[in-house]
């Protein structure tokens, strides 16, 4: 009987330590669970509030402003150049420097795009579809219509009335 006493004490100590280890493990696991729920990784396509506003504003304002811009050399707005370039009646506008409406249109869009969208360093997709065969498009940082995270594009149709068909100007901005 006396020989068993040390063995029983030893077993008691083991049990106590084992209990302590279990408590520590439970607390550690609980903390890990808490931290894993608290610190969620960022969704790469989630835009901040500011980006959501800025990209929508830029997309719609850019297209509207571009269409109303007056090209003094050609004595016509960009919208009129689009109609002259894309419609079936042919190119009637000739600019002071000899360019036709399509050339002036391309030069104007390129210049404005370089000074604004490229300067601001946004990933964007800008396209002007004149008809089923002709399209002017610019893409920066692979921001295409299929890119995840691309915002709702600003879409502006310009009808060739009284001729059939219409041109469509579209600009979409992607998240960084």
């Amino acid at each position, binding site marked *: 009987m006396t020989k068993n006493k040390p063995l029983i004490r030893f077993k008691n100590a083991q049990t*106590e330590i084992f209990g*302590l280890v279990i*408590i*520590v493990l439970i*607390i550690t696991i609980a*903390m890990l669970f*808490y*931290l894993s729920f*608290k*610190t969620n990784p960022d969704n790469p396509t989630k835009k*901040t*509030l*500011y980006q959501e*506003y*800025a990209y929508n*504003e*830029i997309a719609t*304002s*850019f297209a*509207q*402003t*571009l269409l*109303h*811009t*007056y090209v*003094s050399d050609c004595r016509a*707005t960009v919208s009129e150049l689009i109609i002259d370039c894309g419609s079936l009646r042919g190119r009637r506008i000739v600019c002071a420097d000899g360019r036709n409406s399509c050339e002036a249109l391309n030069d*104007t869009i390129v*210049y*404005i795009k370089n*000074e*604004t969208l490229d300067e*601001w360093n946004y990933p964007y997709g800008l396209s002007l579809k004149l008809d089923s065969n002709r399209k002017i498009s610019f893409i920066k940082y692979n921001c295409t219509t299929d890119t995840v995270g691309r915002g709702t594009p600003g879409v502006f149709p310009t009808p060739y009335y009284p001729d059939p068909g219409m041109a469509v100007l579209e600009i979409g901005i992607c998240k960084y």
Partner: protein
Amino acid sequence: MSCDILRKMIFRNKIKKAQLQMGETIFVVIFIIILIVFGIVFSTNAEEDSIREKQKTLTDLNAITISKYASSLIELQCSTLGVIDKSCFDKYKLTAFMNLSEKESGQIAEYYFSQFKNANVTIKEIYPPTNNEWTIYYNELGFNKTKKSKMTNIPVSLLDPISKQKSFGELIITTFS
């Protein structure tokens, strides 16, 4: 005699056992307190991230509010027969506003501070390529421009009311926080 010695030995053993038990309890309590402290440190760090996120959202909201206000200033907007043209500024109104700002800079700053607060608002003509630029509000107050500023660029039309021609402009709003 031997009984006394035995009694003393048993008593000493009991004291040692009690001391051991107390030591064990104290150790467990200290260990749990350390674990709780670690837990508090971790949760505080996690809260800090959440607070920073909220602060960023508030800064974004502030920038959006200022941008919305700047792009819809009635004093500068184009209008035709009383109908306001959105995203369009009148060049003559801009020039007049700048001249007034130079004369009455204190009053203008005080009037618009409630809306713009710490920000710079500038309008620049992009196409046709001129060097025309109008600064309608300027208040940096010693902020470090490179560190805590947010710049918003919004395309706007600039109307010449005499010729009725619109040029391509840019509204630049820089907010400081």
